[in-house]
């Protein structure tokens, strides 16, 4: 943060006075003078930190505080301290484990195909392709579509009686499927929605990273006899590894927090994850605890548990990545 220190006026203003005081005071003084010298730098970044404090840090800490109390939505001031009671209760709650399992399966069902398809799409787009701009825009469309609109359309596609998918299934001789009521089928359907929304976004990130790979690497690989597929495996994927890790982290965070798609999937936006909670995610569970049962402390504990899950998972990715990087050195 030395943005401003190049400014001659500021530098002049911050220049030390002619009479230098004796030793002990100088360190503190130097620190203070560095602060003043950099004050414009701090001023420029301040808005971000103010917003961060107000809208991220405060809610974050406040949630932690609430999670240690028994709080009802109707009576925010009547909080009773319960220690880790909310957490122990959560860990003994079969709904929590059900929701955690659903979140995991939906997470895997959506993240893996999503990233794999994105990688393939980016690879195709990376070749000299006609109408590349068109495809790029097209790929961003799902991302730009509102969750609600998208999910409602998909809910109709997956509808039992009039849904397009069942109609097609029937046309090729299969039975209709009651997508919403089955456990696997509902989770697959939700994963399809998530994949549809996020594939293009990830593909664009991959595409940007691919375009940074020097072309002569591919030419060298071509001369070395590598087929396109081998080039993809031996040139593209290794160069993309950091990017892939990044998208995995981002998708994992998204998957743990999955909320909108399952909420709207039933078509009325009122569900808490199906009649037998077959597609209740952690996000839905938290919503249920806080806004249906009005138990804010419990909901806050769930929120913090989700956060910790994310931390652990991302930490594990980080460890794996570091170990790989070290093995490669």
């Amino acid at each position, binding site marked *: 943060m030395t943005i401003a220190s190049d400014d001659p006026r500021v530098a002049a203003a911050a220049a030390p006075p002619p009479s230098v005081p004796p030793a002990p005071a100088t360190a503190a003084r130097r620190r203070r003078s560095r602060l003043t010298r950099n004050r414009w730098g701090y001023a420029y970044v301040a808005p971000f930190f103010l917003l961060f404090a107000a809208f991220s840090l405060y809610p974050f800490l406040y949630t932690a505080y609430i999670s240690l109390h028994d709080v009802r939505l109707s009576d925010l001031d009547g909080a009773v301290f319960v220690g880790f009671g909310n957490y122990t209760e959560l860990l003994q709650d079969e709904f929590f484990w059900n929701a955690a399992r659903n979140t995991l399966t939906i997470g895997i069902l959506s993240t893996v195909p999503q990233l794999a398809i994105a990688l393939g799409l980016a690879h195709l787009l990376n070749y000299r392709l006609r109408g590349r701009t068109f495809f790029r825009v097209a790929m961003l469309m799902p991302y730009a579509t509102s969750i609600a609109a998208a999910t409602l359309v998909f809910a109709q596609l997956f509808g039992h009686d009039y849904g397009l998918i069942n109609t097609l299934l029937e046309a090729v001789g299969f039975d209709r499927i009651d997508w919403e009521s089955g456990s696997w089928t509902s989770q697959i359907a939700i994963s399809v929605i998530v994949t549809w929304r996020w594939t293009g976004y990830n593909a664009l990130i991959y595409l940007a990273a691919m375009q940074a790979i020097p072309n002569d690497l591919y*030419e060298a690989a071509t001369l070395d*006899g*590598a087929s396109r597929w081998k080039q993809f495996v031996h040139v593209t994927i*290794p160069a993309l590894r950091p990017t892939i890790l990044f998208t995995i982290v981002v998708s994992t965070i998204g998957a743990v927090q999955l909320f909108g798609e399952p909420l709207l999937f039933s078509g009325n936006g009122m569900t808490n994850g199906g009649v037998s909670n077959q597609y209740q995610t952690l996000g839905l569970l938290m919503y249920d605890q806080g806004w249906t049962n009005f138990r804010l402390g419990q909901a806050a504990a769930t929120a913090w548990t989700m956060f910790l899950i994310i931390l652990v998972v991302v930490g594990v990715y980080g460890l794996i990545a570091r170990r790989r990087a070290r093995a490669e050195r």
Partner: protein
Amino acid sequence: MATVTFDSATRIYPKSDRPAVDGLDLQIGDGEFLVLVGPSGCGKSTSLRMLAGLEEIDAGSIRIGDRDVTDAPPKDRDIAMVFQNYALYPHMTVEQNMGFALKIAGVPKSEIATRVAEAAKILDLEDYLGRRPKALSGGQRQRVAMGRAIVRSPQVFLMDEPLSNLDAKLRVQTRTQIAALQRRLGVTTVYVTHDQVEAMTMGDRVAVLKDGLLQQCDTPGTLYERPANTFVAGFIGSPAMNVITGPVVDGGVRLAGAVLPVPRERLLRAAGDGGRVTVGFRPEAVELAPEGVPVVVNVVEQLGSDAFLYATLGASDDGDVLHTADLVVRTEPRSAPAVGETVHLRVREGGLHVFDPVSQQRID
């Protein structure tokens, strides 16, 4: 090992109205080291990439040995290429980089290891086999790139300015190493450079290109002694040959009032057009004399072993100098004249080149 033949090979890039390589005809012998040289943008890289199969051939054909490879994909041509930026695979070790082509070809692991070890020994890379390109110096990377080509023992080596990323001293060193290595392996090699010194020192033969057209292809000695046209004359040799056009008079060409003698029969053939002739002489083919073409010395460059005079033709008011290029003259360092002095030049016996002033072609 094999011969390489370019047969009127032409490349026109899409959206370009002029061929980047125009009807290139070249026969490269088995085991020969051929250097493609020319100014930037003359089509050297394009020619090389056409041979590699990285660039389409729009007309004509290319043969490796007896096989027409015009439409063959790169991997079926059995060639290896050293790229200007080396194009080493960044995430693979030196060993993996060198063995990659063999691995793709399904060569057994033990054989890959022996061949890589052999190449590493030749190139003095044995201590670096486990490192990644990032952790190597420029010269080491260059050697890995060479190693990657050697390991495959291909029919033809292609190199596109492989030394341009090295510092001057290393470049001179590596230049001799590559030339020696090529002679030892005896693999047909096509080498691209824009540096005529590199071309002259390394090549068995040198092909000079300009604007996609082959100007001359011959041994370094012949290029130097008998350049086919004024472009080759000016391009080969350092400092460049002096090339001047002037009016024909009896017995020679008039330059700054004096007459530079030109053999009669060559003069007659050159003077078809308006009584002018283009002559060329190298800096080292001139000597200072009491009589001769007067020049004014502008700069004296002392190199220790030689001195170079940068001079302009002496004053003349009869318009007999058609382009007033600077002349360069080599002299003994001790007897070099002072700046501002007027000296007289004489071309040594056999040091004069004569060109047609219109077609720019050599006249013998």
